[in-house]
């Protein structure tokens, strides 16, 4: 252990160590700024300071130790004072500096996904989570896939050029996304769990609730043991995912060429909770989409055994979800790409 020199006896060489220490510490105590501290450092520890000069001239070990101890003491005191002052300065800044927290921030430019894309992804994700794949069907179709394979009887109004856009007698712009179901079933054996979303085309005069192009989302499940109960359970889950877990569902008999039995799904109105409002036309229920058990004729068309396999299919309109859930008053606005609308979603 190093022996601590006696301060009283520390008058060594040409300096009075005790006086030096006293003076330095006093000067340091008076230092109010970093510059003041720096001046103290130069005066007492600088190259031309008495201490440094004495250290350069010292010859005996004892004096050397004493002076070095003094140097260390002064250095530590200076550092401490410096830290103290900078801490005080920080405290002052922290006390004084304020912003108006309600001022706007500096934003990065951000774009927006179209509302229909957002709904499309949501729909896809719901079914991806259930184990379904997403199929991109083609939009220009043969009448064979758009009508015949889907069991549309001759004379069905959809087959008329009054309702459907024909390119020639045997080619149409698809009127529903269902041809993708046929093409998928043709290409693979069951089980099939798929959804298909995209543009469909009908000869509808545009108005607030009709657009000649709109987006359909369809699902198909074909497997051993698929039941109507499975369909209703799936639609119930879908309704709750899209419109809220408090929603109730109701199912009513309907008729479509491609399903038997056929069911129309209704969801309890999310706006009035069933008590009646203009959105649900005072019925408390909102029609959300058609569905049913795949007609065995479709299975025969694609070569599936209708005894062994059963399946369900359903079709929804994405715009309809946008209208119901987000209150879009006019479908045509979704095609105008007005940034004031796009930017809301």
């Amino acid at each position: 252990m190093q022996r601590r020199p006696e301060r009283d006896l520390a008058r060594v060489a040409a300096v009075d160590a005790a006086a030096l220490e006293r003076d330095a510490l006093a000067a340091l105590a008076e230092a109010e700024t970093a510059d003041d501290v720096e001046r103290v450092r130069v005066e007492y520890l600088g190259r031309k300071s008495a201490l440094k000069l004495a250290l350069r001239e010292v010859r005996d070990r004892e004096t050397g130790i004493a002076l070095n101890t003094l140097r260390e003491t002064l250095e530590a005191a200076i550092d401490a004072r410096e830290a103290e002052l900078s801490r005080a300065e920080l405290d002052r800044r922290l006390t004084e500096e304020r912003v108006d927290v309600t001022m706007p921030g500096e934003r990065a430019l951000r774009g927006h996904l179209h509302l229909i894309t957002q709904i499309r992804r949501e729909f896809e994700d719901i079914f991806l989570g259930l184990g379904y794949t997403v199929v991109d069907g083609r939009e220009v179709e043969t009448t064979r896939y758009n009508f015949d394979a889907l069991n549309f009887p001759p004379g069905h109004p959809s087959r008329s050029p009054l309702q459907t856009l024909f390119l020639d007698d045997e080619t149409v712009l698809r009127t529903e996304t269902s041809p993708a179901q046929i093409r998928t079933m043709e290409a693979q054996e069951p089980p099939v769990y798929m959804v298909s979303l995209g543009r469909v085309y009908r000869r509808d005069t545009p108005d607030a609730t009709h657009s000649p192009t709109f987006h359909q989302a369809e699902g198909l499940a074909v497997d051993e043991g698929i039941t109507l109960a499975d369909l209703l359970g799936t639609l119930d889950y879908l309704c709750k995912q899209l419109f809220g877990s408090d929603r109730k569902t109701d199912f009513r008999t309907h008729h479509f060429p491609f399903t038997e039995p056929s069911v129309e799904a209704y969801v309890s109105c999310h706006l009035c909770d069933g008590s009646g409002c203009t959105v649900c036309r005072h019925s408390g229920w909102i029609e959300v989409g058609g569905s049913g058990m795949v007609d065995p004729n479709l299975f025969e068309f694609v070569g599936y055994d209708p005894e062994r396999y059963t399946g369900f299919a359903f079709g929804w309109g994405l715009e309809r979800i946008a209208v119901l859930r987000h209150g879009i008053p006019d479908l045509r606005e979704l095609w105008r790409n007005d940034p004031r609308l796009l930017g809301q979603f």
Partner: protein
Amino acid sequence: MRAPLSWLREYVTTSATVEEIARRLNVSSLEVERILDVGVADVDGNVGRFLVGRVLEAGAHPNADRLRVCQVDVGEGDARQIVCGAWNFEAGATVAVALPGALLPVLDAPLDERELRGQASRGMILAEDEVGLGDDHAGIMVLPDGIEPGTPLVDVLPIRERVLDVTPTVNRVDLLSMVGLAREVAALTGGELRLPDVEDPAVVDEEPVDVTIEDFERAPRYVGRLFRNVAIGPSPQWLRARLHFAEMRPISNVVDVTNYVMHVYGNPLHAFDLAKLAGGRIVVRRARDGEELRTLDGTLRRLVPEDLVIADGERAVALAGIMGGEETEISEEATSVLLEAANFEPLGILRSSERLALRTAGSNRWEKGVDAYLAEPAAELASRMIVDLAGARMTGHLDVHDGLPEPPVVRFRPGRADHVIGLEVTDAEQRSILEGFGFDVSPEWDVRVPTWRARDVTREVDLVEEVARAVLDHVPLTLPLRRHVRGRLSKDQRLRRLVEDVLVGAGLSEAYTWSLAASDPRPDAIRLPDPMTADQVVLRTTLLPGLVEAARVAVETGVEERIGRFEIARVYLPSGEQLPEERWRLGAIVQGGYAAAKGVAETLYDALHADLAVRRVTHPLLHPGKAAETDAGILGELHPTLLEGEWGALELDLTTLFAAAPDAVEYEDVLTYPAVRQDIAVAVEEDVEVGALVAAAREAGAPLLREVRVFDVYRGEQVGEGRKSVALHLAFQSPERTLTDEEAAELRETIVARLAERFGAELRA
């Protein structure tokens, strides 16, 4: 279709309320759009203020020529004085009376006792429109004699009625009839069906009916009946009221009967003035080419051989199943009637009705396929009513057909229904459901389909549907077992989402634009032969015009700092085959010139870990000097004629683009050993592309040159006319060791030498 409740309840006894009936029908049968309340208000005993009255005296009004002062017995002992403006009745007539205080649908305030030109009037003798039973206001309602004065009017006439407004699906034409609805209600509510009990009038003074069917395929059946001594006149009030509720206009008794019976059975009927039928004949045949017929709506129609007509001995007298002809319609003078209760095939009716743009209550039913067996009961009910209401004699009956179709018999397994529905329904219950809907079920489950469902139910699965719809409210909510599922987006689908997200992050917003455009740069783009509008004519082969329009909208709106739009959609490229080649494309348009488009492309390729290489091209939608192509598409400055200002645009084929994106990125060690960074500047001729310099540098510096980046291009006196100085940032790095300064210098030399050799580049720094 409108179904008045009191009429419906004539055919079905059920304890169910109208709301319950509507609910059950909605779930299991058809859409009940709404329940209408018609007639007088049912509040504060209002219905009780309407009574049957007998006119005891009908005298002149002393102060008004057009008014009469009546004394009316309404069962109160003393007669009431009522002033009346109608003249279609005399003393002794049975009439409908509203007492003071009554609320009438046509009045804003309750009926008052009041004085009319000095004569007290304590009530009102009612016309049909005043209680919602019709539109006629020409005279008051004259009721049949024999009803006790004071009888509540509601016991005699449906002045208080609720009407179901229903829309059956196309396969359920049987529900476009009161009987069909009643059968459904009985089955669904546990009620009892009571079909109309009709005593077919006997044929008297029989005479032959001359009916020939030339085309049994189009007209499988024709029941013709003759009536003589027919007294055409208005229908009784109850019949007028029912037609009114069912949205049909009362015309005259015989015509009203045909409409009424159509509503009861769903089998449209027609009545001809027999005297106007040449030769008293009916021939059901195809129209002759160019044959003309003036239909009941007054329109002269030119027919084609695809149209089926009812003809007499000489000419077409009706468009079969769609509309009668004007010349042979039942006028007030008619005394002999030929009643038609036929059956027509649906498709032919549909085609003619579409071609002629003529849809009627009749064609609406025929085109869906009416049960051929209905013609007989419909003819019987109509005959009974014509005899009863028009005092006629039925003098002839003929039923022409070529054999009626046997209804199908379908083998059914109740277990199959359970299997499809996912709910166990007992055999007994399934049997009872089917029988309730009119199916005849044998002990071995051979199910005979009722004739009125024969077109719709032909297979076991159709019977499964019958069971399913009956139990639909009880079906549990389950999810499929999904033992073999694999739900994931494909690579392209994942990358499409990535592209969307990257572009949104870069400040672009997604636009949706139409697949059909007014025109397309490709002359061979696919055109619609019969477009809806002039701006949706051709299937687009490029997304850019739609995006230009979206950008124009954005400029007009003027709310954005920097406009950027993109769209991911299909284009439709002519393929020479039936179906075009559909390609997924990305289109984008951003404010700024070439560099803006290039920047978007670079961000995108970077996000996909794909290399972007561009070559100069020309493209009709791009500025000729500022256009490039990549392996996947084009990018450049939008041609200035398309949109004011400087815009960058790009259009990339996503399948091609995504093929260049690696499935997984392999790690490259850039952390262990430091890079040596050096900058060089070389002067080259103006037409040397910086891309070529970079490529040459890369080639010369491989494999240790890890990065080459152009960071400045300078033109000025020091470089000389027609030349430019290109500054390149170079980074050399080895994954195995720290490079020495000498190695880096050597590589730099090699690169400079290569640039000098290939481009005459002079090193400036």
